[in-house]
């Protein structure tokens, strides 16, 4: 009983230390290293980026307080902030205007403010946004896509997937049988095989227009559903059910080039075009949707797909037809342990993180650091051996304590010595 009680305190103590000690250490000594901002310059035709360095650069082009930030290109050439922005005129077009550099002349073509604004778009897909990686809304609003007013408005109902669609009226908090029946009939007519498996929409009214929902049915076929003047409007898309849809992220942008990003079960990413629902594959070598942020930056000349985990950022430059032109990869300064993290990695063998930047769900994530972890375990075990020999008591219980230290390093060592074994 005494042993049970003791380990009932040691186990939570180890978990609590593994969660909070690294966090406290980070807060006291660590610094957050943001991800690299990587771009392709339409001016120099080079990849160009901004980094925060772990150690300040020896020679800086700018005043001291910016010394930790560097702007650089793939040839290692450094730029000042202004030079950097001038290399990315489509992004910093408002500054270009201020500096009197509009209209731009690139490759013989001329771009004024309106032309730039009309052909700019950024679409992102973060691991958190993939279906099943965050708590889902589960009940969705189907907006009126041709409203009488200038602004979009929420309907009184939301629908859930219950085989077909089931609309629930918000005023009464009760299912609206009539509306549900109407929509399910329309879906059935369009060839939907119930039950529906996935509904993807953009559930806000803060968007220029409404493009409705994409629904995936039991057979894997994808349907496009809108509410037009209160009536269901359904289209069966030509997407091959064999593709297997994992997630769809709807994009409602004035450019109206594509309607959504579509992630297949085999982790390929597609653009779902506005005309005829064609799928355009994005050539993203080594893309892992569960661990990488994806961003597609569109400007009047190029599309740049940028995707990164927490160590390496990659970019592929595509032409207007999404054919790859040139690609690049860059190891981010954050890939390296900061000096403080490096010290800590010798002190304790692992950390436990509750929050996961790539998921909307909390999880107990045990993170070790390879050989450093082994060293951290080794010294803790050695210290424990000295401690055990000096106490020369405890009998078999000391072995259990030893095992705890061997598995949890400094955390276990602190716990078993603060709560000494009683004979």
């Amino acid at each position, binding site marked *: *009983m*005494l042993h*049970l*009680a*003791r380990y*009932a*305190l040691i*186990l*939570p*103590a180890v*978990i*609590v*230390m593994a*969660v*909070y000690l690294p966090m406290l250490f980070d807060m006291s000594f660590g610094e957050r290293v943001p991800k690299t901002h990587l771009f392709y310059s339409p001016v120099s035709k080079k990849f160009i980026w901004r980094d925060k360095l772990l150690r300040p650069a020896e020679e800086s082009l700018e005043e001291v307080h910016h010394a930790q930030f560097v702007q650089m290109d793939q040839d290692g050439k450094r730029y000042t902030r202004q030079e950097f922005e001038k290399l990315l005129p489509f992004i910093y077009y408002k500054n270009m205007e201020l500096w009197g550099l509009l209209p731009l002349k690139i490759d013989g073509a001329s771009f004024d403010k309106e032309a730039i604004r009309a052909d700019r778009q950024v679409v992102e897909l973060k691991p958190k946004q993939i279906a099943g990686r*965050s*708590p889902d*809304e*589960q*009940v969705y*609003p189907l907006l009126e896509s041709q409203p009488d007013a200038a602004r979009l408005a*929420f*309907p*009184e*109902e*939301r629908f*859930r997937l219950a085989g077909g669609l089931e609309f*629930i009226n*918000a*005023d009464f*908090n009760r299912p609206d049988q009539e509306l549900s029946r109407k929509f399910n009939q329309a879906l059935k007519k369009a060839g939907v095989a119930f039950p529906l498996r996935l509904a993807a929409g953009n*559930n*806000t009214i803060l968007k220029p227009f409404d493009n409705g929902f994409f629904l995936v049915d039991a057979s894997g076929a994808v349907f496009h559903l809108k509410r037009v003047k209160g009536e269901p409007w359904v289209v069966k898309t030509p997407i091959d059910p064999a593709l297997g849809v994992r997630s769809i992220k709807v994009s409602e942008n004035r450019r109206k080039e594509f309607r959504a990003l579509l992630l297949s079960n085999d982790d390929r990413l597609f653009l779902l075009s506005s005309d005829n629902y064609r799928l355009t594959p994005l050539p993203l070598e080594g893309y892992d949707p569960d661990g990488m942020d994806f961003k597609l930056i569109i400007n009047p000349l190029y599309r740049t797909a940028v995707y990164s985990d927490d160590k390496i950022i990659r970019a592929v430059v595509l032409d207007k037809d999404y054919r790859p032109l040139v690609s690049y990869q860059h190891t981010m300064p954050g890939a390296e342990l900061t000096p403080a993290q490096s010290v800590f990695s010798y002190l304790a063998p692992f950390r436990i993180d*509750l*929050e996961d930047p790539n998921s*909307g*769900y*909390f*999880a*107990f994530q045990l993170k070790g650091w390879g050989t450093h972890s082994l060293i951290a375990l080794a010294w803790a075990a050695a210290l424990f051996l000295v401690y055990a020999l000096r106490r020369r008591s405890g009998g078999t219980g000391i072995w259990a304590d030893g095992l705890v230290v061997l598995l949890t390093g400094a955390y276990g060592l602190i716990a078993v010595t*603060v*709560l000494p074994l*009683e004979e």
Partner: protein
Amino acid sequence: MFRSILLKEYTKLKAFWLAGLALNLCVAGYVLVALRKLFALDHAEVVWYRVIHLGQTFYDPFMYLPVITGLFMAVAQFLPEMKNHRFRISLHLPLAPHLIVLGHVLVGLGAVVLILAADLLALAAMTSLYFPAEVVAVTLATALPWLLAGLTAYLGAALVLLEPGWRLRVFNLAVSLGLTGLFLHQGAPGAYQRILPLLFILVLAFTPSVLLPAYRFRYRKD
């Protein structure tokens, strides 16, 4: 004999339990009034948007309530036992120490659980008045870790109060605070959903630790 201990602790805690329950019901009443006000001020679908899409937690006052309830019950139960170390009377009873402590903790924990169950029930009932079942489920999944935090707060406070030595008292306090904090991280509603069973096991695993100070009452050398 074991029953006598349960009965004794019940006698001790009855009034405090009613006070704790009353406090919790007051908060539940307040949340209900605030919820009604939300729907009175805005269209229902807009409130739904805020709660479902933006993750507004209208039941925020429930976040720290279980912790407060757990602390309150533990203090009501064990602080008087610490005055002149009155707990020695119980520990001298002719019963194994783990049964003596278990008896105390069962009643205290039971009292906390009953109040928290009332909270959960109230929250489920008022949420289902205004929202679909999906929202009720997410709301409960969001509030459950808070309730578990109430249990660790009770156990932690018992652990700190019963421990006779100062050094371990500080250690117990740190572990209990940290553990309780694990259940109160801010995330999207439902973020704890997938580790709820694990958290529950963690609370269960932590429970026997309350025995340790009872043993220490006899075994300590300082």
